[in-house]
């Protein structure tokens, strides 16, 4: 690179920074909005099923039935929001969404229990199939434990049988936040890179200021560098801010070394900028750029393993996810946060990020000068 080019790029970067940071509202969007989003996601994306509102219809009203209900409450998974003797009230509560689970204990429950063939009915609101599946598992386990304790109390310990002892590693309390917050970081950084490059370039084209830059002595490559470097810096600052927030505010343990994540972040931001530039070359208006960006971003998040495990997807979609930089970055971030993974064990993900960034950047670099002229 000639000294002249370095100087030109430096001036361009300065100009871009000034443009980015001049408007207080833009500053707020760049630095405050990721923090708001992390807070929102951190609290809202909570797939732990606790305090499920439960409606109880106890036809028996015996000491035994009350003890079973107590077992539900004591577990912490269920909150009794209403009781009644009429099944119609249960229907009402589920229809109106006041309860997600109904527990119906039939008449003669205590009597049947004594002779060993009692039954209870659990009714679930399946409109939230995810919560319903988990709640169903908990409810059955509670009934099972209750039954076991009865058998044990009666002295007829069931002979044989198998007991399962489960232990969760990396996240012993199975808190979903520990898994989700690191992923949010990856999502926010991608969004910021896309928005700032794609929309900013198209905007200059719309306003005609790109033409001014075109007739300046800057070469297209210098122009691209000048446009993207400030965004990369902003991306890294945002990354540092939200990572700190995740550790300090949400108490997410950071078990790995920061440099493992930093290397990945640089590659990831590079990929994000390249995709942003590519979108800018195929969009004439900001609205188009925005819609195109969304058309990439939404599927990228859905197919990243953020909310839904990739292995449960159909095979075709599992292949598609290999082309998704968000997937590889999330794998690295989660491994660094939760498992203290090192650079060496993550080489496939690094390599994938590097390849994706290189290929998209190459296409963008080829297209960019042409789109400027057009």
């Amino acid at each position: 690179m000639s000294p002249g080019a370095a100087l030109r790029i430096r001036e361009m970067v300065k100009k871009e920074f000034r443009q980015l940071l001049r408007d207080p509202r833009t500053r707020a969007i760049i630095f405050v909005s990721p923090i708001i989003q992390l807070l929102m996601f951190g609290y809202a994306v909570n797939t732990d099923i606790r305090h499920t509102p439960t409606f109880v219809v106890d036809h028996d009203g015996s000491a035994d039935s009350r003890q079973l209900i107590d077992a539900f409450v004591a577990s912490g998974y269920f909150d009794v929001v209403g009781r009644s003797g009429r099944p119609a009230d249960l229907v009402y509560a589920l229809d109106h969404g006041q309860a997600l689970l109904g527990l119906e204990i039939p008449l003669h429950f205590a009597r049947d229990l004594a002779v060993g063939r009692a039954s209870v009915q659990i009714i679930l609101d399946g409109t939230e199939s995810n919560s319903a599946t988990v709640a169903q598992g908990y409810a059955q386990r509670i009934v099972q434990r209750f039954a076991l304790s009865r058998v044990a109390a009666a002295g007829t310990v069931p002979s044989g049988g198998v007991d399962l002892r489960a232990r969760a590693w990396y996240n012993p309390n199975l808190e979903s936040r520990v898994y989700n917050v690191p992923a949010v970081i990856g999502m926010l950084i991608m969004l910021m890179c896309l928005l700032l490059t794609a929309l900013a370039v198209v905007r200059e084209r719309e306003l005609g200021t790109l033409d001014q830059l075109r007739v300046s002595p800057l070469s297209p490559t210098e122009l691209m560098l000048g446009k993207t470097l400030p965004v990369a810096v902003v991306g890294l600052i945002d990354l540092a801010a939200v990572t700190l927030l995740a550790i300090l505010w949400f108490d997410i343990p950071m078990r790995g070394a920061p440099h493992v994540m930093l290397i990945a972040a640089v590659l990831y931001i590079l990929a994000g900028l390249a995709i942003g530039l590519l979108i800018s070359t195929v969009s004439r208006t900001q609205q188009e750029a925005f819609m195109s960006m969304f058309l990439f971003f939404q599927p990228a998040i859905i197919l990243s393993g953020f909310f839904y495990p990739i292995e449960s997807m159909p095979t075709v979609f599992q292949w598609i996810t290999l082309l998704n930089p968000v997937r590889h970055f999330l794998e690295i971030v989660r491994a660094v946060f939760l498992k203290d993974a090192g650079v060496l064990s993550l080489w496939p993900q690094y390599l994938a990020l590097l390849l994706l960034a290189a290929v998209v950047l190459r296409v963008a670099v080829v297209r960019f000068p042409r789109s400027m002229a057009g």
Partner: protein
Amino acid sequence: MNWTRLLAVSRKEMLQIRRDARSLYLAFILPLVLLLLFGYAITFDIKDIRLAVLDESRSAASRELVASFESSGYFTVVEYLGRRSEADAVLERGRARLVLVIPPGYAADVATGRPAEVQALLDGADANTATIAQNYADAIVAGHSTRIVRAGRSTGLPIRAETRVWYNETLESRNMIVPGLVAVIMSIIAAMLTALTIAREWERGTMEQLAATPVHRLEIILGKLAPYVGIGLFDVALATGVGLLVFGVPFRGDVLLLAVMTLMFLLGALGLGIFISAAMKSQILATQVAMLATFLPALLLSGFIFAIEPMPLVLKGISRIVPARYYVTVTKGIFLKGVGIDVLLVDGIAMVVFAAVGLALAIRVFRKEIA
């Protein structure tokens, strides 16, 4: 208010949308892509969980237990481990999510009727999948255990829990996602498209021209809204049609009620989009604010995917002013529960209020700006 002028503004906006044909295509393609992705790729029905087995018993009894896991359909055995230390690596590398450890004395315990114990080591990093995997493992072991006990002499546990699921009998995640997705799609379309419409006029300097015409601001707002209401309603119909025909999602309620509620929701969301657009005057800012103010709440705080009950109080409070929350209740209620206006009255009123507030905000900020 003059209908001719209003229609003229609408026609101008429609011409502008048509000229920008790609945005229009995207407005129709985006919902389809989301629907197909959510419908085909995404499933909360966790299956084929990768299972590694450390069988220290190496007996017929232990193989039977592993067979119970495999035949359940929830687990796929990916690896048999030789030593306990290997469990570490398998979980860290993510090769398996669950390691089933069957201790050396297992077969002897089962044969002599002593309570046997097996261990499940879970990769808890993904708490959601781990919880579900644990529940499945629990159920499989319990089922297996009951069979062993029955084969002996005892009669098994004295209580049977009968589970019934309402509204979504097969617990299919598609059935919950499609109605909720309609709301999210609406929020995206409404916010994204309208957020740009007025900011664009400001950036291009055509707003002064528009202000100089005799068109009243109410006519500008409503005129600009009309085409987007059309796009939005079409998108809802499209999403509903694909949901019913392709994904077989049940539709148990009243179509007319859904249409009316959708219209209310759209008016509020579009009004909010125009308000943001007029207040920000820049397209980049407007899109960012629209994302924060409409799309994210619709995704996170509407009960679409994430249940609202476990959230902290502050977020629960905020969710009350998120229109999408009421709309998701309405779509799920109409699609899956088949309930009518008697149950959805509160949500309906909430959405009328939002429509009024959204439009009022749009008109108010617009007056200030023009002056």
